[in-house]
């Protein structure tokens, strides 16, 4: 029993240590003016696991640094943007990842969420990588329509689809 417990704890730490989401780059859509951009900025800053936000008003982009050792929830970021009255056009996560074996049709778990890799071949991920989220609400509606049929879903767990072709 004790052994199993240690194995589980070890597995958990191994996963947690193997991949960590450090930061995100978010492009918002539906706005031009600085007042609109400021609303998104204030809304993102209030998200519990966000450490800091830097914005580029002209490009409607936001660089978000996350607090270390806190779970990053993409849905909370999406809600922050829609609450401000706008949408996400593009969201990418910058991860530091340590020797994770990527296999087709097999998700990897990061921050207790499952990530499926789309259009990616089997390989070992190592170092700093950037992933683009492809699910509804994280890309433009036009783009979502195009890729919809390729995406995975899971009835029980929140699943995210990502690619590395940024």
């Amino acid at each position, binding site marked *: 029993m004790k052994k199993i417990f240690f194995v589980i704890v070890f597995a958990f730490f191994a996963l947690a240590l193997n991949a960590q989401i450090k930061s995100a780059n978010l492009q918002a859509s539906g*706005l*031009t003016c*600085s007042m609109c*951009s400021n609303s998104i900025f*204030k*809304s993102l800053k209030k998200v519990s696991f966000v450490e800091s936000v830097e*914005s580029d008003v002209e490009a409607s982009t936001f660089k978000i640094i996350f607090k270390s050792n806190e779970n990053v929830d993409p849905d909370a970021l999406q809600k922050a943007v*829609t*609450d401000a009255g706008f949408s996400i056009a593009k969201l990418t996560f910058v991860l530091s990842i340590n020797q994770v074996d990527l296999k087709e049709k097999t998700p990897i778990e990061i921050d207790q969420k499952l990530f499926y890799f789309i259009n990616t071949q089997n390989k070992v991920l190592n170092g700093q990588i950037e992933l683009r989220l492809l699910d509804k609400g994280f890309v433009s509606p036009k783009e979502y329509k195009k890729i919809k049929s390729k995406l995975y879903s899971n009835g029980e767990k929140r699943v995210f689809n990502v690619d590395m072709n940024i």
Partner: protein
Amino acid sequence: MKTLILFICLLLATHSKAQELFTYTEPASNIPAHVLSTRLMSSFFKEKDGSGTNIHFMPEIRYGISGKWMLQTQAFVSNRNGNLYTEGGGLYMQYKFLNNDDVKRHFRMALMGRASYNRADIHQEEIEIVGHNTGYEFGVIATQLLHKVAISSMLSHEQAFDNGKKYEFPNTQANNAMNYTLSFGKLMLPRKYTSYNQTNLNLMCEFLGQRLHNNGKSYLDIAPSIQFIIKSRARIDMGYRHQLYSTMERSAPNGFIFRVEYNFYNVLKKK
């Protein structure tokens, strides 16, 4: 004067790249969730019978309940009968039901509803539940943003009742109307954004019309305005409203409005 305003408006409409925080109308975009917006609107309209200037003050509080729902409450203060007098108040709600966003552009639609109480005398055929009549209004708004240009339109039905117990709505007048607006706005400055501290300059031109049911009387106004957005959280509007034509009795159709607005973020937000 009229030709000049019309010219500026046409110039804006054709060259237009605009912003949508209109001075005289609401866009289909709501204020963000958990933003508390405080406003003071003052208007100065010249009385047609030469009795002076009709001054109104309207303090307002707006709150974004969610990304889709917005609530607004305002009070109506006026000098129409000598001293400043609180004539009533109003409640406004807006629900955004369509939101198509793309980078630097959007198309949005919203439903709006307003209910107002006013206890001042009824002195004109025009129905205006913001500051003159007791009544309600409901309608639909559509707004298109194309980079620096915004175009917005509203269509609504407005119904007036008696003003308090003292002033019955005259049964010789039409007590309901259709309102229609068309607004253009353009972001003029800054040419390129570098920070939230830059002052934004927006130019706007709006057309505001009403048609009374039953008797078919109508008016159309043109309303150019200039707007400053300061530190991306405060706003100053200055506008002039001018009657293009009217077949109904209006006591003070031409005049200026000034508005100041300040926004507080993340108010009443659960952690």
